[in-house]
């Protein structure tokens, strides 16, 4: 029999169909695991044809996130950030290259966001105590004024040659709460991809990295929690190979004399930000989304949406409950505002 070029094409097409059929035939599993890390719940759903292999990859990702928490949490006395805080105003602290790089990026975000986002907010975070096990009471205003003098990212001295970090004023402290969780998510996601898991959602307390798709033809669908009807969604959208983070006033708060006091503190006043109920930002990395969501929450929707340099898809629920978003979000991510 003579084999013509057409025959080759037909043979190739039959082979291709067989491969595609085999792919269709594979049973896939969405494996879900939840752990408590970084003072929140970390939920991962990953799609894989091999559950045992997927579980091993997920455990490795959680170990990596735990390692990042141990390095960067100011709640842990043994972390390098706590060592920097304890030595504030006294001496520089030798840190790992990873921590130094984290501090360098953190300081850069503070500069980019004009100090509205400031990781030296630590003394005020401790005073309010939303991240600690203490009763939330309205702090003395004089105490707030006194501690505000310690909040200034320019007083972080990073020596790249010696890999040291020094906080120039005694009593200063770093709180990476608005950024380290994002970095941990990025590290956990990198581990999953390295171990061959390409389709997953990694959600650490509402900050999320989304990789790949839900199935061959469907993107993962995410919801934004409504800041006041917290069992409902404010909006939903699709995401692939991207991050989202939300800053909101409804997760850690206390109502005192009819006023809501929450954990997102304005570095200019020392009091909780008042312009937003929540801000949701999409960015290439969870770290970037995390820091930017805090900034936009404090900046308010008008300035955020007017800022040409703030080139992120975003949705903000303002303090009056009105919902604002930009075209970048609406057009590219199938955004649907629910209420």
């Amino acid at each position, binding site marked *: 029999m003579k084999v013509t070029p057409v025959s080759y094409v037909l043979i190739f097409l039959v082979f291709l169909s067989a491969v595609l059929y085999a792919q*269709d*035939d*594979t*049973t*896939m*599993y*969405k*494996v*879900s*695991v*939840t*752990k*408590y890390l970084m*003072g*929140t*719940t970390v939920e991962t*759903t990953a*799609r894989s044809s*091999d*559950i*045992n292999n997927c*579980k091993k990859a997920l455990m490795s990702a959680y170990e990596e996130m735990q390692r990042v928490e141990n390095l960067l949490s100011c709640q842990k006395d043994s972390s390098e950030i706590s060592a920097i805080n304890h030595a504030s105003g006294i001496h520089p602290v030798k840190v790992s290259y990873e921590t130094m790089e984290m501090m360098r990026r953190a300081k850069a975000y503070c500069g980019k966001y004009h100090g509205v986002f400031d990781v030296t907010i630590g003394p005020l975070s401790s005073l309010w*105590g*939303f991240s*600690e*096990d*203490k*009763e*939330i009471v309205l702090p003395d205003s004089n105490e707030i004024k006194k501690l505000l003098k310690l909040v200034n990212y320019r007083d972080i001295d990073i020596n790249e040659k010696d890999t040291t970090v020094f906080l120039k004023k005694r009593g200063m402290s770093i709180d990476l709460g608005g950024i380290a969780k994002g970095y941990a998510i990025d590290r956990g996601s990198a581990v999953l991809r390295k171990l061959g898991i390409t389709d997953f*959602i990694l*959600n650490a*307390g*509402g*900050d*999320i990295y*989304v990789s790949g798709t*839900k*199935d061959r033809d469907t993107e*993962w*669908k*995410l*919801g*934004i*929690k409504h800041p006041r*009807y*917290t*069992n409902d*969604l404010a909006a*939903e959208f699709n995401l692939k190979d991207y991050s*989202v*983070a*939300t800053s*909101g006033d*409804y*997760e*850690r*708060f*206390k109502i005192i004399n009819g006023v809501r006091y929450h954990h997102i503190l304005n570095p200019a006043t020392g009091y909780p930000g008042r312009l937003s109920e*929540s801000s*949701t930002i999409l960015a290439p990395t969870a770290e970037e989304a995390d820091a930017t969501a805090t900034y936009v929450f404090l900046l308010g929707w008008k300035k955020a949406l007017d800022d040409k340099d703030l080139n992120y898809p975003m949705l903000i629920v303002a303090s009056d409950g009105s919902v604002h978003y930009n075209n970048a979000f609406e057009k590219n991510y199938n955004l649907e505002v629910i209420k």
Partner: protein
Amino acid sequence: MRRRDFLKYSSLILPASAAIGMINPFTKNIFAAVKNSGSFSLSVITDKPSKTIHMMEQAIKNSEYGSRTLDFTEYRLKGQHIGDIAYVKSQKLVDYHKGSDEFSLLLNDSARVLSLPDPVDDPVLLRFSSQQNPTEAGGINIFRGDALIKQLPLDNDRELYRIEGLKGHIDIRIKNRSVKIVSASCKHKTCMNMDAISRPGENLICVPNQINISIAGKSALGVDSITF
């Protein structure tokens, strides 16, 4: 978990019965069949998770439930439980011991190899399911860390139910098929700010105590994850 409770919760018979009971008995079966067509779940209590997962994967692969995407979850259980397999098809518990179809035969073989049913200490609960559509609210699942420590019915009001956590305790109230945290032993009491939950997929979380209280069932919100 007692074997009877395990089978009861695995079958989701309770929530289905509650919903079906509200409509004309004549249409009960039709309603149930349409509402849950194609749903499948396989729950296994075992102390050999890796081996069991591999065997269930092989059984599912060769069954009508293969060639699709299934949900998988795994929870630890404390204490002694009866290891067993519960196979639910369209919300009906199937007695795979008596079944002559290929999947039942494979499950029967797996149960024999795994020596089930049999008492096991500190096992895991593995769950494979294909539930695509939202469901009625099931029972209340209470987790501490990654262990399922208690299951409570949603329709039995309780003024106060105490749950011991890692650092203290919280008290919940179950009233009119909804659950609320009413007191907590910690100082900041953040979890008490959370709204009461009543719909499938909703949960209440106390992070310091690593307690998660969730309503069983598939959420109607229709999203894969939520940013907050």
